[in-house]
């Protein structure tokens, strides 16, 4: 027993000795704790951050699809549970509202010479986040199936539905379309895409007063309804990752998911026949509009306000190392569209560039947008199940938003 104890103690000591390793990014100590969403591109990015941090720092990363729901509670604590958070134009506003991420100007001046200007997210003259990738949802299709049935690649949602119905009628697939319709954030996002595609505005200009209960909202909902009718009947339980699994199982011929999905859909795992048959297409327009019905996103990182300056600096340097790593970007050109200097886009970048060129709207960075997104997440379900009219569903969304925004002090 005594020997065992000594051996155990010894092993602790020896790991301690090994910990004094080398860090390519010059991080020597401090604690780097990162909260991030869960998808393959982020994993690639985090591997780079980890190798950049080296052994000197206490490094950990938490990947969670619920990151948006965790972030406020986790970063409000002092000291915060995480020293850094991967943010997007959607999630940064919530953190900004509560002053939970710090300005990075000093750190950028000290270490950020390799950054490109468009990586700096500047709000009111201060840098609050560093972006490293751009993302958007767009159409994906199975080439052989469309070719067999003589279907042209759809460029509008009306054509998507016609194509899906044709595939269904041919008996090749029972539910040829898939989108992330899981009740919650995903469902809200589908509405946001479709409503913007119809040219809608979420709020009366310059105010927090919501206005979605209009013709465009109704048209957007009806289009979502028609899409769900050619989707798996379990659509309300399928998030983006579940949709990608459906795709890799060969159950789906058309889907509207994130460009960064290429990192897992086009990798060497899974059915290579399906991979070889997978094609990316531009995001469709809807209702005769000219803008594609999708939103543009940037992904980046912010550093917690409630963490020590030493931890903030260590986290910043490690994350910056990855956010300026040309090698990582060029080694994974199809994982996403990197915003990193020296990156040569791969062949999957087209649909995002196209969306930007055709004037797709960036996801609205408004302080009260998350409240509306939350209301959309829960109040649209009954309409999609056929238990409620579109007007009623949108009236419910507005009422739920007003109650929440009043409690939050926006109205």
């Amino acid at each position, binding site marked *: 027993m005594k020997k065992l104890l000594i051996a155990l103690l010894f092993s602790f000591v020896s790991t301690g000795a090994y910990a004094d390793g080398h860090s390519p990014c010059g991080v020597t100590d401090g604690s780097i704790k990162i909260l991030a969403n869960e998808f393959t591109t982020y994993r690639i990015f985090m591997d780079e951050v980890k190798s950049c941090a080296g052994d000197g720092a206490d490094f950990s990363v938490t990947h969670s699809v619920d990151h948006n729901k965790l972030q406020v509670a986790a970063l409000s604590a002092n000291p915060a549970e995480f020293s850094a958070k991967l943010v997007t134009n959607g999630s940064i506003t919530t953190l900004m509202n509560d002053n939970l991420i710090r300005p990075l100007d000093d750190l950028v001046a000290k270490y950020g010479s390799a950054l490109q200007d468009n990586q700096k997210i500047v709000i009111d003259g201060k840098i609050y986040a560093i972006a490293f990738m751009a993302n958007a949802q767009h159409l994906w299709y199975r080439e052989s199936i469309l070719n067999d049935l003589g279907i042209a690649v759809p460029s509008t949602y009306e054509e998507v539905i016609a194509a899906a119905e044709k595939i269904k009628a041919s008996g090749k697939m029972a539910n040829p379309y898939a989108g992330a319709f899981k009740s919650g954030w995903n469902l809200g996002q589908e509405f946001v895409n479709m409503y913007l595609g119809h040219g809608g505005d979420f709020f009366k200009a310059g105010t927090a007063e919501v206005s979605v209960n209009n013709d465009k909202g109704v048209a957007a909902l009806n289009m979502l309804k028609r899409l769900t009718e050619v989707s798996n*009947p379990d659509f309300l339980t399928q998030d983006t990752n579940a949709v990608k699994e459906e795709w890799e199982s060969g159950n789906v011929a058309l889907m509207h998911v994130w460009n960064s999905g290429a990192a897992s859909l086009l990798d060497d795992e899974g059915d290579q026949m399906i991979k070889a048959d997978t094609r990316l297409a531009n995001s469709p327009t809807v209702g005769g509009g000219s803008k594609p019905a999708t939103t543009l996103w940037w992904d980046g990182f912010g550093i917690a306000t409630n963490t020590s300056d030493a931890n903030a600096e260590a986290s910043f340097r490690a994350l910056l190392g990855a956010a300026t790593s040309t090698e990582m970007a060029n080694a994974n050109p199809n994982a996403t569209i990197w915003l990193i200097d020296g990156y040569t886009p791969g062949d999957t970048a087209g649909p995002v560039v196209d969306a930007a060129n055709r004037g797709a709207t960036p996801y609205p960075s408004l302080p009260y947008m998350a409240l509306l997104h939350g209301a959309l997440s829960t109040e649209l379900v009954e309409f999609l199940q056929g238990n409620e009219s579109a007007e009623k569903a949108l009236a419910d969304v507005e009422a739920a938003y007003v109650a929440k925004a009043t409690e939050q002090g926006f109205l």
Partner: protein
Amino acid sequence: MPHKTFFWFFFPSGLAMLLFIGLPIISSFFQSLHIEPEQILMEVEKCDPFGCKTETKVDIEATTKLQEEQPLGRFNGLGTYGDRNHLAFEEIKEAWSNSSSIGEFTDILLNLPFYKALLFTLTFCFAVTPPVVILGFIVALSINTITKSLKGPTIFGVILPMIVTPLIGSLVLFWMIDAKGILGATIQYLFDDPNLSLKSSSQLTWITLIIYGIWHNTPFAFVVFYAALQTVPQDPIEAAIIDGASRYDRVRHIVIPHLYPVATFIILICLMDNFRVLEPIIGFAAEGVAQSLSWMIYNDLRSENKMLFGSAGATSMLTIIGVAFLLTPVLIRTWREFRTER
């Protein structure tokens, strides 16, 4: 027991209850009377990879100052209790005067988040509790009669559903009832309908959740009944056997009356437990069609914006009142029995 001894005996647990149950309830109540201070908005220039534009943002300095002045937030009285996301007095009044029939009024009422959640919570409570008590009793009776060598493993097997964490248990079942899972595929085969999916309609989801609830709760009823069965006096049973009473008669006239107080206890605990149903809703990804009061609290505290403490506090208070209402009949009954026994 003399009063003094009882006091010192009870004091530690009483203190713990006050500290860890009483105070948090009072704190939640105070929080439910407040809402967030006003958010001061300002227009600023924002630049990101897609270009620069003027956008609205919260004026952090001004808002933080307001927050420091009122750390609890603005006093709102019972306003949060009456808003649309809770008791919705305004909406109900309007619905009452505008709807032409009771059916239409009920439709509007059950479309409001709180009443929708209440309907599911109560349905779940009253659909799960009776089968749990009956099944638990039957299982306990059957296990009581099997041979000793088999008892141990059987008991272990029976209490397994209770050992599995509710979230994990429901996730496992969620994948099993998937259209391609073993249960889902079997059901499709049995009903000869390739499009049948337990996750697609509200009714089927509700039924799935209720069956899960019964599966998860029965072991608890079984354990309590089984323990109580060991205390059934043997003399009257032997006398009944001599008198030629059948097994059914013995159970009906001796065992059941003996276990009656235990059944009350189980009903009490089951109602209380099931009123707080949350994990299966998350596990089965059923948020869209089945919301419970606890899920509302969870959702308020995990919303993507600032946590809605006031709203969560109000729902918590209403849940406590709900539990009190639910338990009153059972408690009154227990109290009467207690009095007559004395």
